[in-house]
């Protein structure tokens, strides 16, 4: 199986199907991050396509093909965070949150029927960046360094945000368990 670097080289030499191979290889990673951060299939699809469009534009200029996956993750996370910030800002500006977020988290959680739905509701209640670090660490299993790189943060800041987000989730999880 050709490496990412091989495929990038082929793409740079004009072989369009090499890009398709890269897309197929990494679409699960990109879509997975986008879906877990937005919990919307439609938003995840749009963010996934936008990510790959940016990759398509920048691929031939990528200086370190071996670092492709890290670069791909960075683009994905940056686009997802931008999307969530805009969504949050729109909600604040309109002062009317969409149906999915209009209720306080305990109400949403109380109505959720299974652990997955509970956890999605808890994640949704976190600030966008906290949600990102938790998803990248506890779902995508990235290392601290990789997460700090993807978020554009120092290692110290990344750890602080991760620990804080986990503590928030744990408190809410305890409440749930208590209920």
């Amino acid at each position: 199986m050709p490496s990412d670097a091989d495929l990038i080289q082929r793409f740079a030499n004009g072989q369009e199907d090499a890009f398709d191979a890269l897309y197929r290889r990494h679409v699960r990673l990109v879509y997975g991050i986008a879906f877990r951060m937005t919990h919307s299939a439609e938003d995840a699809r749009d963010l996934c396509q936008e990510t790959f469009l940016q990759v398509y534009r920048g691929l031939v200029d990528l200086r370190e093909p071996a670092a492709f996956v890290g670069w791909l993750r960075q683009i994905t996370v940056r686009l997802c965070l931008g999307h969530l910030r805009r969504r949050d800002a729109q909600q604040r500006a309109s002062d009317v949150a969409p149906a999915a977020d209009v209720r306080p988290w305990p109400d949403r959680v109380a109505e959720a029927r299974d652990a997955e739905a509970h956890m999605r509701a808890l994640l949704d209640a976190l600030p966008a960046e906290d949600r990102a670090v938790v998803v990248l660490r506890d779902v995508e299993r990235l290392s601290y360094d990789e997460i700090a790189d993807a978020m554009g943060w120092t290692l110290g800041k990344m750890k602080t945000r991760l620990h804080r987000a986990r503590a928030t989730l744990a408190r809410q999880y305890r409440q749930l368990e208590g209920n």
Partner: protein
Amino acid sequence: MNRVGTDEDLSAYLDDDLPADERVALERRLDADGDLRVTMDAMVGVRATLSALTVDVPDGLLPQFRSLLDERRATVLDRPIQESLRAMRSTLETLRGRLSMNDQRRRIRELTEVTASMCPGVLAGETR
């Protein structure tokens, strides 16, 4: 050693990111402190549930991407052309600047010669 057991300690413990001595101290405390143990278990539970979250990637994303790419191809493929045009424009500007400088030098030289012919000796030191 400071007393371990903060949220940060628990989270770092989960990632095996605590120094060995703090790890041992925290494990002792977890054995003795029921409330702390419940919080630790909650963190473990959250992580386990998160790990189990499934995502179904929809079919047909690649063909959709290709369609989208075709729609935006002009923008995408224009980019290198635009960059080349910008580079060419910049080169032309530079050349124009040099020509202009040459023009200025020539003009200064002409003025110097005229001045020297009208006022011989005044510019002798400069034109020698």
